């Protein structure tokens, strides 16, 4: 496994510096791992995202107008420490409070929880919405223990638009909760990514096996299956989403996201999209917009996930709001 690195243990720190260079002035470092928009409107309700690095462009590539105001970055695959989150919270806070929006992983939950306490002690109002879109990780009855995977892309985009228009933190929480509750995902792993510091694969999988419902670090879900065609896989994944508790049916409108976990090509994502479109068309479900590509990655892991966000009259105008960030831009 050849990787372009300098000191493998400094990969996270170097990539964050490179990310700030990529933002080219629009984003500023507020501390190690803490980055925020250079200019935030004076009375804005702030949106802070964050999580481990190594999954680029999430989360820290999603800062910009109509997207997040800042991000707290941890080491590779590790939630950010509370002090990093606090630095980022201070940088985005404009007195109207800060929404913490991140994926539901034990490490993130605990570190953000400590940071929220520290922020509250400084008089900063903080609310939290957890992203738990992965239907494979727990049954609908136990939603709070589902993990966040690629669905965070549409959710952060909708949250970014909501943060532009929300007049207070409560309104933002309720809009983002709606976006979160209307989003479902499920993924498949074909082959592992590797941990930059050790070069070790993140999990093992036979040459002809695939992991249905695997998480973005290789956490297992529904189970291991035999390799299959793109169409058969699309059928299986769409079934898993549509069988969940969010009713999506005739006449509904959805956003579709086909997310590559890293090395799965745009070609393969497009072939899967073709089938997903055919299935939805057959069920008279309308595709409002499509997102596709390596947006939530696990290094060079192969595999993809499918996410649907059901749009209603509240979410549609949020989706239509222009936004700009390294990971997602909409004219």
């Amino acid at each position, binding site marked *: 496994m050849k990787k372009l690195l300098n000191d493998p*243990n400094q990969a996270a720190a170097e990539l964050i510096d490179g990310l700030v260079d990529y933002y080219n002035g629009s984003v500023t470092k507020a501390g190690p791992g803490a980055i925020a928009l250079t200019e935030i409107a004076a009375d804005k309700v702030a949106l802070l995202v964050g999580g*481990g690095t190594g999954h680029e462009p999430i989360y820290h590539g999603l800062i910009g107008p109509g997207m997040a105001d800042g991000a707290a970055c*941890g*080491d*590779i*695959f*590790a*939630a*950010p*420490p*509370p*002090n*990093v989150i606090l630095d980022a919270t201070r940088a985005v806070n404009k007195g109207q409070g800060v929404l913490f929006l991140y994926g539901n*992983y*034990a*490490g993130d*939950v*605990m*570190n953000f*929880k*400590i940071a929220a306490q520290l922020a509250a002690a400084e008089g900063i109002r903080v609310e939290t919405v957890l992203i738990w879109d992965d239907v*494979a*990780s*727990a049954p609908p009855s136990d939603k709070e*223990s589902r*993990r966040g995977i690629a669905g965070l892309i549409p959710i952060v985009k909708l949250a970014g638009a909501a943060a532009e228009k929300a007049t207070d933190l409560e309104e933002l929480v309720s809009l983002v909760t709606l976006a979160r509750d209307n989003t479902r995902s499920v993924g498949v792993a074909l082959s592992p990514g590797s*941990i930059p*510091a*050790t070069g*070790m694969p*993140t*999990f093992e999988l036979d040459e002809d096996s695939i992991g249905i*419902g695997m*998480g973005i*670090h*290789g*956490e*297992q*879900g529904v189970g291991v299956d035999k390799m299959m065609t793109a169409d058969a896989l699309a059928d299986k994944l769409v079934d898993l989403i549509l069988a969940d508790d969010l009713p999506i049916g005739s006449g509904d409108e959805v956003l579709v996201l086909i997310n590559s976990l890293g090395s799965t090509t745009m070609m393969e994502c497009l072939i899967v999209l073709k089938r997903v479109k055919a299935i939805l068309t057959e069920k008279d479900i309308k595709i409002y917009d499509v997102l596709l590509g390596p947006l939530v990655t696990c290094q060079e892991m192969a595999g993809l996930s499918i996410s649907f966000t059901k749009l209603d009259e509240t979410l549609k105008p949020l989706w239509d709001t222009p936004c700009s960030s390294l990971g997602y831009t909409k004219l």
Partner: protein
Amino acid sequence: MLDRTLSPNEVKEMILSICDKIIASEAKLSEADRKLGDGDHGLGMQRGFTAAKAQVEALDPKSIGEVFSATGMALMASMGGASGAVMGMLYQSGGTALNECEALDAPALSRFLDAARDGVCNLGGAKPGDKTMVDALVGAQEAGQASVDKSLSEAFAAIAAGASDGMEKTKAMIATMGRAKTLGEKSIGHPDPGALSVSIMFNTMNEYVNC
């Protein structure tokens, strides 16, 4: 065999020996996390205890709590991840309970462990049996409570054994917390990486005291 108390400076030395031991266990801990999680537990612990080492080396401690709290702060600020929060909280909460303490004896050790357990369980919501580091921590904490009337030397031997036991028990458990949760039955047979770390930490304390 130590049947006296430990000074703040001895506790500092003891923590430094834990730092070296954990740093040297990186591969073993990461490998354990590769079985159940995302394979980075050793890296996080190495990062944390490298930071803690620097922090603690610079201390001229006046209280026992000061050493533990400084360790916890360093872990908390440098690691991130689930283990950054829980390991940081373990030492921070435990240390806060010994803020005024200038000599570590068996009752103080037990107070440290009680507070550490409370801090970690309040933070993460894990209970014994969930297959987390809490199992090893509770093993140590219960042994500590049972040892309040013993010598410090005996108390350290007991908490090390309690932590090891707790860690061993995680092998047979199905994970219900954290990344390993979705593995279900497949998590059986492997020790929880965080429990392994806790067991290494308390066994290194015991070696410092009893060797």
